[in-house]
């Protein structure tokens, strides 16, 4: 698992990409979690947004303090609950119509 993904060269829309665009895109999506694509559903997009937001809150100490003060909780508790919420921030996925 550690030997894969050693590629560091930035991807440009060069001619070679035209033939390998799909595999490269898949590769990109695997590498950069949260990147959108054409068939993204509203639920997926929202879930990504929420996870990004929650991790940003945990990553900015003043924001966790801000929430902790408002809610009367310890900073550690706020961080914990935010991280827990990242598992499923927007409820279960909607049922597919077909």
């Amino acid at each position, binding site marked *: *698992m550690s030997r894969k993904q050693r590629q560091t060269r930035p991807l440009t829309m060069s001619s070679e990409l035209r033939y390998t665009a799909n595999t490269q895109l898949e590769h990109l999506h695997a590498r950069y979690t949260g990147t959108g694509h054409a068939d993204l559903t509203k639920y997926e997009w929202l879930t990504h947004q929420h996870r990004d937001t929650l991790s940003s809150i945990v990553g900015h100490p003043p924001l966790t303090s801000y929430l902790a003060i408002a809610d009367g909780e310890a900073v550690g508790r706020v961080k914990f609950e935010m*991280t827990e919420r990242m598992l499923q921030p927007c409820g279960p996925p909607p049922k597919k119509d077909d």
Partner: protein
Amino acid sequence: MHLYNLTVQTPTAITHAVVGNFSGARQQELVLSRGTRLELARLDPQTGKLSTVIASDVFGSIRSLAAFRLTGGSKDYAIVGSDSGRIVIFEYDPQTSSFVKIHQETYGKSGSRRIVSGQYLATDPKGRAVMISAMEKTKLVYILNRDAAARLTISSPLEAHKANAIIHHVVGLDVGFENPTFAALEVDYTESDQDTTGEAFSNAQKMLTYYELDLGLNHVVRKWSEPTDPRANLLVQVPGGQAASSDRYDGPSGVLVCCEDHIVYRNMDAPQHRVPIPRRNYPFQDDERGLIITAAVMHKMKGAFFFLLQSEEGDLYKVTIEHEEQEVKALKIKYFDTVPVASSLCIMKSGFLFVAAEFGNHHLYQFLKLGDEDEEREHSSTDYPSFGMADPNVPLPRALFRPHVLENLALVDELESLNPIIDCKVLNLLPNAGTPQTFAACGRGSRSTFRTLRYGLEADEAINVDLRGIPTSVWTTKLKEDDQFDAYIVLSFIYGTLVLSVGETITDAEDSGFLTTSPTIAVQQIGVDGLLQVHPHGIRHILPDKRVNEWQAPPEKMIVNATTNKRQVVVALNSGELVYFELDLEGQLNEYQDRRAMGSTILSLSVAEVPEGRQRTPYLAVGCEDQTVRIISLDPENTLEVISLQALTAPPSSVCIAEILDASLNRAQPTTFVNIGLQNGVLLRTVLDPLNGQLTDTRSRFLGTRPVKLIRVVLHGNPAVLALSSRTWLNYTYQNMMHFIPLIYENLESAWTFSAELVPNGFIGVSRSVLRIFHITKLGSKLKQDVIPLDNTPRKFVAHPANGYFYLIESDHRAYSASAAEQELERLRATGKEFDKEILDLPQREFGRPKAPAGIWSSCIRIIDPVEGRTVRVVELDNNEAAFSIAAVPFAARDNVLHLVVGTAQDTFLSPRSCTSGFLRTYKFVEDGRGLELLHKTEVDDVPLAILGFQGRLAAGVGKSLRLYDIGKKKLLRKVENKNFPSTIVTLNTQGSRLLVGDMQESIHFAVYKPPENRLIIFADDTQPRWITTTTMLDYNTVVAGDRFGNIFVNRLDPKVSDQIDDDPVGAGIMHEKGILMGAPHKTSLLAHFHVGDIITSLHKLSMVTGAREVIVYTGLHGTIGVLVPFISKEDVDFISTLEQHMRTEQLSLVGRDHLAWRGYYVPVKAVVDGDLCEMFSRLLPHRQSVIAGELDRTVGEVLKKLEQLRVMAIGF
């Protein structure tokens, strides 16, 4: 508009703290992260005081901090994870007293992102590897080693990623010298993202995973992964590995998994042990709620180890593991003590515990005992079937304890912290303070405080004595050169001199040899053991055997001024002549053959101290009435010749030559400064060139309204200068940089150094007829704080314009108010159950209160007298109401009598926000404002977050609607409403008929009230969404605001639009204008933007110095206080911006964050120059300084002078 940002008070919160031997000496130090700064603090084990050694702004947000030591090394390195997308290893260099970056490896984008590492850091206990992890997926492992020259090396990163996994914590395992292994707490979301039934989500497992770094193969493998408690949040390393000397194992290795209500011991292929986390036996509390551990520290002693875990309520638990070799026999937990809830805990080998509090002051405790022999009940995993793991899904029976006052720890020091500043006012209320004071509502929960901050050094008074006469001057003197303490205090009065002798008590001295029938001009301990007194008619040289050699002033002439040092005496006669004496090798005072006439009355004289090992100091400074200061040579070759001359703007009342170290000018040796105090209260500071005696680099500042008097003193062994005017100032060196700070003390007419057994580093001063002895202990803190304790988290406060009282609202979520607690107790008594009453009698300030379920609030209105520094009255709110806004409103319908309106809400839930009802409580001031009488309560439909007096009425932001209310007999009467605000109104400002409305998410809206048609119309808004926290109007069209992400910005409305709106009498025109971008018809433009890095909680426009220009003062949540100073000239803007550009290229950020990117975190920085970066110019190496100064076509001195001038003009010091 162009602004200059200066931080007056750097953030005081500590987000991380690590302990280690960073200087490589035996002593342990702490590296503290203050969010955007790194600090090295050292503990003095004798006094138990923590002091800051160095502090450095990192211009980035620090997210994690760890220390490590290479095997066999004696020095610890620190690693910092930040939002720079880089891992940085740095060390402390004791030689230069600075942090030195050793490695900086880039691995990802900057910013606090979900999958970019930096959030968690874990080090191998043997210092062989470090893991840096993101919130999700990414984990990088770097191998640390040393090269042939014993320098630290770092490898390229190895990946230990796991896609779709949320990471809760990582920790390095102690495996001795086997392959380094890291443990991570992870949750995989792949399945719960797919499963529409929600079953996968509820069955999601939290995995404890071991990642092993195979040093031979140079890659990371997932070694072991097992589900653990789904509510686990924290991992703690358990010691392991074999001791080098014996084959004994230090510990069982593995981790403690801290879960909600439980602690579990885990290791690969070993049985689990589980114990409950004991909870407080409150008779009532939210029983649904679990208890989690938020901070932990492990401490190893010889052959033993223990853990201190801290719960979210602040209780410390001591956890021990009984083990035989690698096999764990029992896991034990017991209550230890209660301290403030910590962001980090550090145990030092010298027996101290440092608690970096998440809110409020940081505490340093000393261990008295380790809780081994007390009666506290210990809970062991052996008390439960299968070590508590019979059924991991069923919680163990709850364990209870009653907290007690500190038994095992003793508080030895407190580091004051403003964190969090929730609201603040800057006003000049205190008598004879000169400059405005900052009043800050700080803190959280029961440890909240209301602080009065004054800028200046705090002086502690030791003694004050009334003398019944008014002395003109005071001196102290030793008897011999090598005496440690002073023997005499000499006081000069208009007609005589009083000599006091200092011993165990201070008494009148007899037979001191001093002439007491005449006033004194100077006193000096001269030569090895002589004393010298200069009086108007002569000089007395008192020998140790009390013989006196007297020099008589020439007939008809008098001595008006004198200056002395250990070997030289210069006196000035009223004829304008200088007479020079020098001590010869026999200890005789000899007059130089010539006298020199200056051609003008001599007002002041000064010579420096004799340099070590020299005969004399070569320069004398003479201040003359013709508004000049002359430097005169005392060198034998050209004695009494004028070398240089400085013209002044006013007669010099005092001159003082002092040699003070200032690293920005010369870091090798002290610089000779000639300080010139003028009669108009201005102080000039020039540098005396030691080689040619020329004066250069003149800087001036205004000290006060009285003529300046300068006195050279000794402060903690170093030379310093006291400047007395209408305020007292101290010029001294701290951490190698020169400071010029006002003293917060009585005004003094005269002062001198004082050193006695009881006050070894003191000063003596005279203010009118009172003799005062005082000392200054905290040279580092420029803020003096006076504290009033509060009961709940403060929210907002207003000042009464007439009586000077503050009205403060406090509200705490998840807390029982006193009446609610009483009700709960009643209920319990009714059921007849027995309960522990004593626990409720514990001081709430230290122990907090029982946690209530969400939606329960404790709230009050407090009246504070800021001058006396006390609470006048507390009005508690009932019915589970919580106060959210407050305003003093003069109602036109009641003859403009001021009323206090408090916006409250009942049964409020925060997320999503809801309440059963909001209220506007209207109070009448009674007893001159010392009391409040409730007139009526007006129901509103949402939480009123912002209220304001507006044209004799009340403007209230209630949820999305802005309303105007007028006062009625039974209620406030709603007059007009506008419901078109996007989310929630959080701030209101007004000028004229204009209202500036800050929306929680959608920036600032400009609204206007048109009385003829009774309309409230929004006519302008912002093009950007902004999460407003606070706003202040700079002028009619300009507003400055802070947002939740740490930005300050200035918006301005086009004056043409402004006029057009004001000219429209009824607002019909605006109503029918077409909106732009789904908003108002007009847009404000952005004038300035700056990222501070701390959430802005208040903004004020005022001048900090009497007579100076107005500046913007801001406060930040983590305790930042700063100012934004408008530039006056285009030249200044060009100069400082160019300097800033050059400083940016110096790459000063210790975390490797690009400065421009940091200050433009969310929006590119605009029209604001970062003064904190520019001021780091003085800390650059001399050759870098001169390169940059050369680029700017200035000298280094000119750049430094400009920077100092900007600072002094803005904030006064």
